[in-house]
């Protein structure tokens, strides 16, 4: 009904945090006199960008699905479930269950992705190992 709204709210927050972190990282880089990012470190702003891209992507495509099914309309109150109190209660229930689970699973996948990315970046490649031997 409107389960994607929970992810949309998370996407807005994550995007705002990402912009703030990005600004902070740039200021820190300028202060240290280096604009180059450390080779063995993925900046938090880049990781947050992955999460916001996943959230916004899911939200846009699910919004389209809801328009397709007639659950979202281009006129007030925009959600057809809002016109009936019983439907509104069902919608809120769906948001609290399905919506929260969607946002949670995307966040869990992102955390795993970040951990994996850190491991991959810090892992020595065959070429690195060869270079060390020589």
């Amino acid at each position: 009904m409107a389960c994607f709204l929970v992810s949309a709210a998370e996407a807005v927050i994550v995007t705002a945090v990402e912009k703030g972190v990005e600004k902070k990282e740039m200021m820190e880089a300028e202060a240290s006199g280096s604009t180059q990012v450390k080779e063995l470190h993925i900046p938090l702003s880049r990781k947050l960008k992955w999460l916001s891209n996943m959230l916004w992507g899911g939200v846009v495509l699910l919004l389209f699905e809801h328009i397709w099914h007639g659950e979202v309309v281009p006129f007030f109150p925009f959600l057809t479930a809002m016109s009936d109190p019983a439907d509104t209660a069902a919608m809120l229930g769906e948001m609290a269950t399905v919506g929260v689970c969607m946002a949670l699973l995307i966040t869990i996948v992102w955390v795993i992705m970040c951990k994996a990315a850190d491991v991959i970046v810090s892992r020595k490649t065959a070429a690195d190992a060869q270079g060390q031997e020589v």
Partner: protein
Amino acid sequence: MTLLITVFAAVIVSVLWYNRKSDEMQFGTLMFLFWGASIMWLVDAVFEYAELGADYFAPAVEDMINDMYLGLSVVALALVIWLVKLLITDPRGTVRMALKRK
């Protein structure tokens, strides 16, 4: 069916992203778009399965066709979003060159 089509699209784009020569084509945007939607529809599918049980895997033909049509439309929409972003950011400067040409 929508979930299945989106997952296939996500996997294909992920392979394209892995085999990319440079970031110019911005496959990452498309990849995150498809994976985000796939994860969200997966949750939807789990809840629907919990409600319907085994019937979830035996949808009516009409529903399947409608879902397939929706899935293809979703892929088309995602591709259009990616293309618009690619043309606006114009990493190769192709659009700029074409516009500057007399």
